[in-house]
């Protein structure tokens, strides 16, 4: 037997590792689960060529050419058209609430002016906060509009098909006219960083007490579960807030991200979002047996958060089931709020539904955390 290497010793070590892996089902589950989740998410949920984007149409003309263009948009699969009443207020509303990715305005007399050969303009406004989500649809728009008009211009108007296009497609990229992807990513990063750090930090904070045996002292002391939970969470709210200040400063000074809305409102929302993530971490910590498991559970939460929230890939590009999961994650709503406040200048009223979703999440997670926290060691 060799002094530096012995197969028997090596096999002793290997079989010991397997025994320990078998005793730790969560780690094993992670090894099987992570690739499975990644496969599912990347294979089915993620689509960098989003289709069926909600498109609001103000048709002040109601003529044949406008209708043909709208029908062609619908048929292209990129746009899911719905009609909205005429008026600026309705357009602003649709954008502010994120109900529409595009608003198409067909001006009055559009069809008639096309037939007269006046080359009128068709206005297409795009919510360009996430340039990746709109780029393909916009590039498809030019081709399909011209083709649709060509079909409509038959018989005596066939002459209009020659030469320049019968009408102009005027595209306005709102909120992010240059299509800067950093404007979309940097505010989003704030939510991602908070999700990652806050969940894992609280998760570790409680499991560490259990793993080191200090939980026994803590439980023997006259502390209520609520005091323990708040005492564990509040320091990290402060730390999370520091992270926010840091990212915001970088966004402003280094990346020149526009800040259209109220920073006070953003601060208030951020506290709710941080708390929601901390509550998730706390809930995990009541389940995890040790710090490793806690980190693994945090990762399990983080993975869908980053993939299905609309941070990495356009939310509207995902299939229905993935959007449903995405809607259940606080990061999805926080991203909408941050982008809304910073890029669109959204106010309280516009972000209320997303804030309500985060608050509901916080409530449920907090409830589970308090219910699961044991006052005793059994």
């Amino acid at each position: 037997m060799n002094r530096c290497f012995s197969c028997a010793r090596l096999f002793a070590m290997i079989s010991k590792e397997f025994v320990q892996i078998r005793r730790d089902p969560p780690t094993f589950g992670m090894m099987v689960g992570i690739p499975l989740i990644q496969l599912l998410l990347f294979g089915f949920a993620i689509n960098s060529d989003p289709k069926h984007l909600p498109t609001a149409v103000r048709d002040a003309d109601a003529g044949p050419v406008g209708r043909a263009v709208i029908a062609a948009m619908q048929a292209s699969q990129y746009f899911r058209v719905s009609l909205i009443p005429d008026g600026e207020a309705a357009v602003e509303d649709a954008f502010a609430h994120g109900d529409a990715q595009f608003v198409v305005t067909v001006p009055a007399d559009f069809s008639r002016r096309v037939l007269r050969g006046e080359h009128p303009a068709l206005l297409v406004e795009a919510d360009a906060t996430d340039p990746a989500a709109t780029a393909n649809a916009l590039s498809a728009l030019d081709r399909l509009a011209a083709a649709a008009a060509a079909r409509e211009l038959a018989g005596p108007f066939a002459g209009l098909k020659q030469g320049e296009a019968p009408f102009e497609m005027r595209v306005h990229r709102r909120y992010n006219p240059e299509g800067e992807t950093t404007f979309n990513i940097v505010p989003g990063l704030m939510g991602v960083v908070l999700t990652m750090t806050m969940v894992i930090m609280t998760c570790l904070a409680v499991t560490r007490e259990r793993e080191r045996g200090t939980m026994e002292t803590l439980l023997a002391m006259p502390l209520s579960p609520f005091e323990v939970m708040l005492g564990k969470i509040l320091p990290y709210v402060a730390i999370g807030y520091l992270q926010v200040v840091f990212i915001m400063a970088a966004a402003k000074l280094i990346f020149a991200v526009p800040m259209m809305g109220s920073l006070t409102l953003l601060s208030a929302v951020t506290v709710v979002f941080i708390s929601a993530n901390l509550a998730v971490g706390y809930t995990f910590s009541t389940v995890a047996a040790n710090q490793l498991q806690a980190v693994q559970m945090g990762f399990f939460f983080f993975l869908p958060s980053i993939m299905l929230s609309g941070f990495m890939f356009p939310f509207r590009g995902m299939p229905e089931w993935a959007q449903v999961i995405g809607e259940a994650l606080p990061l999805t709503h926080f991203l909408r709020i941050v982008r809304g406040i910073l890029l669109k200048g959204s106010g309280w009223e516009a972000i209320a539904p997303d804030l309500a979703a985060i608050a509901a999440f916080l409530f449920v997670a907090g409830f589970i955390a308090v219910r699961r926290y044991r006052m005793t060691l059994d």
Partner: protein
Amino acid sequence: MTAAIAVTGLTKRFGGRAVVDSIDLSVEEGRIMGFLGPNGSGKTTTIRMLCGLLRVDAGEGTCLGLDIRRDAAAIKRQAGYMTQRFSLYEDMTVAENLDFAARVHGVPDRKARVAEAVERMGLAARRNQLAGHLSGGWKQRLALAASILHKPRLLLLDEPTAGVDPQARRDFWDRIHGFAAEGMTVLVSTHYMDEAERCHAIAYIAYGRLLAHGTVEEVVAGSGLAAAAVRGGGPGLIERVKALPAVETATAFGAVIHVAGGGGAALAADLSAFCAAEGVDWEPEEPTLEDAFIHLMAGSRDNMAEGAA
């Protein structure tokens, strides 16, 4: 005198198996009660139930006049608990650990009380050391200091002197007697016989059942054992002594074999005949507490072995 601890039928089950099985225990105020028993006998579980760290499955009783089932929070405020394994924060200093304990307990005049505890426990030179860097004996002092900061009326100590050197153990026990003299009631679990003999009363549990209860003399007398010392003789003698029908245990202490076994005249009769044949001497001895415990343990059934994988 009133009872600081008075419980009856105390039971705890883990996975359907009674780890603590219907224990009755009473400790008078200002007394030191030694809690003895083999490893895994349920000592820690019992102590944890007394201070509200584990739910009681059956039985009832009071700690400091408070119901152990209903008033766990109130008991925690008036009891000090020192865990078997060091369970203060190793990444905090001695002073920080004590300050935290004092704040959680709402100790009045905190700074002075912490300073006093540091002084009293001789921790002054180490007050700014990380608890994790202390040696076993100092960790134990720190843990004791933390558990008495709020001047509890009841002190629960779970094997406080395991792995601590004899000098530190003696100091520790002197302190415990000091606390008792001030009126504090102490329940202390231990494996050391000399420590058991320093208690006012002892309780012996094995496999979750209380087997003996009383003063050291009462427990020894209650075992009904006789003991003797066998001197001289060569190697192999101890095996032949053990084979005698009246002998339960035979233990070598250097050249002397300490024998314990059946009470009355049985042991004496066996030894007389045996020693005459072997050509060695013997004389009667007082049975020890250890003899009594080993006798009790041998007589009880190991319920832990059942169902074990």
